[in-house]
């Protein structure tokens, strides 16, 4: 038996080697480039001076991602709740339908929004019948629409999965004890589904804040996000890997911090909820 167990430890060795070379070392490279100059000399925090230059880019990215996340939550929560209250067989089909668009490449999804919003696009040719024409492309509004459309399913799924596991008896108890349906929703269902909301919010916020394609395709020159800045620093003719690494590093820290804050919320509330139930 001992030999068996040893063999099994050995079996995971290739993965450990792989993870070190292709996950940990690359992150090490990002750190290395972020803290050195173009000649490879240690540069301390010199590179981080560009954050000031990109301050407006960072704040615009965070703002647009935040708005898109809130809109996703406002549309997605009621949708998840409504789906969780249909018949079990219907639920299965509806959830499949929520998941399907997730598998369609996000470039295609973003482009399908562009078809609608373009100057000669469908929306304008329909509105043209009424003599109205809207400049929707190359605006921040279009970017937010794109973000919401691309990532809405990522908000619905985690909330739905928490809602279906929720103990119906708790809701019944609340209504029996005199809660009306709105109170039952705000005082019982919503607090208990917080874990789903948190993971939905992270799953929408992270790709939104780091996107570069959506802003390029739908936002034009008006919306330059962190993702665009990183792309320019890594791939354009004026590439500067040290600056690209610095921006990536800052983005990574931003995500880690916001994820930690979000997780902190659920841990606290889950224990409170559990304590309350007991």
């Amino acid at each position, binding site marked *: 038996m001992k030999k068996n167990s040893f063999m099994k430890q050995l*079996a995971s060795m290739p993965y450990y080697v792989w993870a070190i070379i292709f996950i940990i070392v690359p992150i090490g490279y990002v750190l290395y480039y972020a803290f050195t100059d173009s000649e490879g000399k240690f540069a301390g925090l010199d590179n981080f001076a560009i954050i000031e230059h990109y301050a407006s880019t960072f704040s615009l990215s965070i703002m647009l991602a935040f708005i898109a996340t809130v809109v996703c939550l406002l549309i997605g929560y009621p949708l998840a709740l409504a789906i969780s209250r249909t018949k079990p067989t219907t639920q299965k089909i509806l959830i499949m339908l929520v998941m399907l668009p997730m598998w369609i490449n996000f470039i295609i999804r973003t482009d399908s929004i562009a078809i609608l919003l373009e100057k000669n696009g469908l929306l304008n040719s329909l509105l043209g019948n009424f003599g109205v024409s809207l400049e929707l492309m190359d605006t921040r509004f279009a970017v937010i629409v794109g973000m919401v459309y691309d990532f809405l399913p990522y908000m619905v799924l985690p909330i739905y999965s928490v809602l279906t596991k929720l103990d119906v008896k708790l809701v019944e108890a609340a209504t029996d004890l005199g809660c009306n349906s709105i109170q039952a929703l705000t005082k019982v269902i919503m607090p208990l589904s917080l874990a789903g909301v948190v993971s939905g919010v992270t799953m929408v916020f992270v790709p939104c804040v780091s996107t570069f394609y959506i802003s390029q395709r739908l936002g034009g020159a008006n919306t330059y996000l962190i993702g665009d800045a990183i792309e320019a620093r890594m791939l354009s003719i004026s590439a500067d890997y040290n600056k690209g690494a610095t921006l990536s590093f800052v983005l990574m820290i931003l995500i880690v911090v916001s994820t930690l804050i979000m997780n902190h919320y659920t841990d606290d509330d889950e224990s409170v909820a559990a304590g309350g139930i007991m």
Partner: protein
Amino acid sequence: MKKNAYIIACFVLLYAPIIILMVFSFNSLESTGVFGGFSLKWYESILQNEKAKEALINSLIIAVSSSLVATVIGTFAAIGISRLKNKFIKSSVMTVTNIPMVNPEIVTAVSMAFLFMGTLSTLKFIKSDDTLDMISLLIAHTTFGLPYVILSVLPKIKQMDKTQTEAALDLGCKPTQAFFKVELPQLLPGVLTGLIMAFTMSFDDFVISYFVRPKSTVQTLPLLIYSMTGKGTVTPDMYALSTFMIIAIFLLLVLANLAGSREEIQAKRQARKLKKQQEAKK
């Protein structure tokens, strides 16, 4: 009633743009605002497009091989990880495993680009740039496929019936035999889910492939679609290609679901048999 109306409205919003895109792939005009009539000319043009063929082949090669490698390495990794007794080591391994899933794609992409810039240029014996690009893509796709495999196999290991392995060993199986004959069949559903996930993730990936080799000439389908949307004008053959990709992914999902439901049915049958046997014994 209100509830149903809301659900329907949401699904219309989710699906309308995609359906419109698919409809416009059959447009006889080169317009995205006016539908001029049904035509297959954009499909003809994409079928004759050499670049599209090449991209499809590259996508398939990369998706098949990276998902297979990820599945083998990942399945064995999950087995080892589940046996780790030290909690600290286990949680550190899981943290590292989660890095590619938690990090924004663009950061993973940039980090890998640095690695390949630094290391691959030292491998002088590989002369062709195309080979280097291909190897980089394979490694990158395997890396982001691995967590999906590990995370779908791990729960199956937890559910595994350990007494069966012990019985096999007691009855004279060697540990490797016990693994392949008793344990692996029990893990198979998780392994297959992981394989399909890794395949679709790879087939669908844009961001990481885009960054990994800045001057890469190897194109995959998503990279080709990106280059077709470019900046400015999009022609409907891009919609035709997109429609093709959507249908390919859907077929994969249907296959995966059929495999899943078949397993479910078999499991139910077995459970029924067991019940009958037990009743007969009584």
